[in-house]
């Protein structure tokens, strides 16, 4: 599909996510394409955003793209380097907490935006074991806003998670509050086909589809149905966005293929 375009599906995903980041946002950054999106936002549309990592580096410049949140590349020219206690405090204290935006990936997501990064099958003898929460459950619990990267297919957009690692809206309307979590949490899902958000009831709906994709195609890649009545076509990445992404954010093609 993306072969017929001037941009890959990775590229439109990255740029679409980057556009969600605004000046003044404090971006909690996971590994891989999350890092690429945060870097793109800082270099394209949100130069006044701050990237930070759970490992303790704050306002990293990322002259080279890190391959992990503990990659020493995050330490170069950072405003401050500390440890996990300090990093997680940033997501919860009264001055900074409300500005934090998380970018994460997951193996499974349900219609309330809850995530599974732990295992497929029975927890005790799983068919497939994944790395686990890492900081995912923490950021999903703490942040007022967040972006999730997903590949769009029926095995990933499921009716029921095999394991609920990171909270989205939990059971739907009021779910977070009932559990003791603050409102907010992950707010947008960016996939290889489009963009999904959550309505006031906490249910996922289709907000946008990429050029060449239809809402019907997207529904065909999900185990559960979502409202597509509000969906519009997503603006494709501009040439300028693509140039900066390719030449400045990932010249080594560590993430972009």
């Amino acid at each position: 599909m993306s072969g017929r375009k001037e941009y890959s599906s990775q590229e439109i995903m990255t740029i679409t996510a980057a556009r969600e980041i605004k000046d003044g946002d404090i971006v909690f950054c996971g590994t891989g394409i999350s890092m690429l999106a945060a870097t793109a936002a800082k270099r394209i549309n949100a130069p006044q955003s701050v990237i930070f990592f759970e490992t303790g580096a704050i306002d990293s410049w990322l002259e080279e793209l890190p391959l992990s949140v503990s990659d020493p590349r995050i330490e170069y020219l950072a405003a401050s380097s500390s440890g996990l206690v300090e990093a997680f405090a940033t997501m919860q204290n009264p001055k900074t907490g409300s500005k934090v935006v998380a970018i994460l990936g997951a193996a499974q997501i349900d219609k309330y935006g809850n995530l599974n990064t732990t295992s497929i099958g029975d927890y005790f003898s799983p068919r497939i074991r994944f790395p686990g929460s890492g900081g995912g459950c923490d950021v999903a619990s703490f942040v007022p806003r967040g972006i999730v990267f997903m590949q769009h297919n029926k095995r990933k957009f499921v009716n029921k998670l095999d394991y609920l690692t990171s909270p989205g809206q939990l059971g739907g309307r009021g779910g977070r509050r009932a559990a003791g979590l603050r409102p907010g949490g992950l707010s947008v899902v960016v996939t290889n086909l489009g963009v999904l958000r959550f309505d006031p009831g906490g249910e996922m709906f289709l907000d946008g589809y990429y050029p060449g994709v239809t809402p019907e195609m997207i529904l065909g890649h999900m185990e559960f149905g979502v409202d597509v009545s509000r969906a519009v076509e997503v603006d494709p990445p501009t040439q300028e966005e693509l140039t900066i992404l390719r030449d400045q954010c990932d010249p080594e093609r560590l993430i972009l293929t």
Partner: protein
Amino acid sequence: MEPNGNKVLELSEAVRSLVNPGAHMSLGGFTLNRNPMAAIHEVIRQGIGDLHLYVHSNGVGLDELIGAGLISRLEIAYGGVGKATPTCIRFKKAVQNNEIQFEDYSNFMMTLRFLAGSLGVPFLPTISGLGTDIVEKWGFSPEFRRSESKIPDQKLVVMGNPFGDWAGASKVLLVPAVNPDVTLIHVQQADSVGNCRIEGLTFVDLEQAKASREVIVTCEELVDTAELRKTPERNQLAMFHVSAVCHVPHGAYPTACYRHYDYDPKYLQDYDRAAKNDNLYRQYQQQYIHSVFSHSEFLDLVGRDRLRVVQADPRTGYAVNMKRD
């Protein structure tokens, strides 16, 4: 051992005397940065087994211990090396094949558990994880918990906020303290009595060390105490927390040590290839761990050319433009 006593030991001696079979052990570092690899290889070389391991996010170090069959029980938040290795391969196999008991937490929960241990309190509160399976699914049964005095009777406890809705929280999750028998960390500088200086990110190393009954420190540089004492605020760990100081240059290789060397992508890729196949993996550990007598011999086997490739650039603290794909 007096606080200011000389704690310098050969790593093999430190591991022999401080890591016992069945010990509850924790590892410093984070995924591919400052893992105590030399100390981990020594534990494997000595075949010290039935270990109960505590990590937050760990990578190849964790994986090698599991691959060597030394881990009986594991409390963990994340087992991977980021983009290079989304999930540690021997960890994945061991869990999928029911070869170890494991229990999942989040990074912040494990962080708070070590912090609680360092502060001598039974638990710390957080709102992280409320409503998730991390709270619901216990890796260790209540029966086992009651039978094992080294772990708490409950995995986690959810309770109402005794201060009403103070701080906007109606409920809190209480995470129990961890006090490992022994913790392994690798630092940039230490003196002979155990004062330590970590450069760059400290991860959870300080809380892990302070929560632990015994601490084995491997260091890039063994420096004069008078030198460290010129800037006391940069010495995050004081001598009385440390049991043994072992001078092991490149002691975190193949993971990174900020301002000294980068992680080695080639080694980690070769490791993954071996880890996918049981026979290859046995050969790998035989060749790189059991057939050498020390970390220095291991480095010779790897080849000093690799050390040149990963050597940190003084401006950035990592290996600029190193081939990583």
